[in-house]
């Protein structure tokens, strides 16, 4: 399952209803997300990062009653992760913030990027797979048209048309959603 807001929130809500399998699936999906979150913000050995990941997982588990089902799950999660990270900086000197404590408290870049990536994945999943693949290759992974066409096993003009149609459809969808 892809770790987008919708899916994580669904698992969290099922977990709150007492579904242990959903809860376990949620915690497993959070591991790579949290590792990325901490690696970008803290200098430390893999063990220290893993300690933080585990502390956050335990907090997510023991404090799960504080999640409000009406609100965004990722905002709740990253707020806990940020708190655990700052607490960790305070307690031990082994782990150091990369850009100073103040900035790491307020820098929302990774969080925003993650949320944006999740949104993009959501949007792409609404497109036909061929168009989604073409956009992902050329616009997200940064391949050239020739490389992407070769990787996809289709012609260059075919790929360009797919990207064009896909983007047009996404724009229409976003504008439709905003209205």
């Amino acid at each position: 399952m892809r770790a987008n807001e919708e899916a994580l929130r669904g698992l969290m809500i099922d977990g709150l209803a007492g579904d242990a399998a959903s809860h376990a699936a949620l915690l497993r999906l959070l591991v790579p997300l949290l590792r990325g979150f901490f690696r970008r913000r803290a200098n430390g050995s893999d063990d220290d990062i893993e300690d933080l990941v585990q502390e956050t997982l335990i907090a997510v588990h023991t404090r799960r009653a504080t999640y409000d089902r009406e609100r965004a799950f990722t905002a709740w999660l990253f707020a806990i992760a940020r708190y655990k990270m700052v607490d960790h900086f305070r307690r031990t000197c082994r782990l150091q913030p990369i850009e100073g404590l103040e900035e790491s408290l307020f820098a929302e870049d990774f969080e925003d990027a993650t949320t944006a990536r999740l949104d993009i994945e959501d949007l792409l999943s609404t497109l036909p797979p061929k168009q989604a693949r073409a956009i992902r290759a050329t616009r997200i992974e940064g391949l050239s048209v020739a490389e992407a066409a070769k990787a996809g096993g289709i012609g260059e003009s075919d790929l360009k048309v797919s990207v064009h149609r896909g983007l047009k459809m996404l724009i229409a969808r976003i504008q439709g959603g905003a209205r």
Partner: protein
Amino acid sequence: MNTDDLITRLAKDVPPVRRGATVMRLALGILLGALVSATVVVLALGIRPDLGLAMRGTAFWIKWGYTFSLALAAIVMTVQLARPDSARLRWTWLLAVPVVLLTGLGVAELARTPPALWLAMWLGHSWMICPWLVLALAMPIFVGLLWSFRRLAPTRLRAAGAAAGLAAGAFAATVYCIHCPEVSAIFVLTWYSLGILLAASIGALLGPRLLRW
């Protein structure tokens, strides 16, 4: 421990969580603390002898309405600050409503009273002990809230401590109403509020130490 093992172990204990569990837990902490405070008032300070009569007048209900609405507004803050994603607080203006209303009543009261009596009205009979009693009665409620917070997830510890102190102070003042015979609005506005603010300050001071998790 390996992260996979940790997850397996955590997933063994997944009790269902009711909606509003956070609010219920805070309410329970306040209720338990308020019971202790009320017991202290009844046993140590004594219920005001004319309570039955006072409850038929408006002064008692103005006082009680002020402290109780302030307490509810403080709860709204505390509930928000008990959750990790509390960067943007909403409804803070609610705290100002009781203060503004009581100030209006106080001004009207002063206009009706000859200036020679203003000082007596403002100081009442108990201005020196009233704030301290409110503060003392707030302690059990604050402890009750600390118990509630043990399962909650505040990330702004100073603000959460202040909100908890404010709620404790305002509920303590609500309980104190059954003892205190003072009637004037400006008395309540000054000395009750002072006690409540003292409780909030102590909460803000202790929050970062006591609310860590």
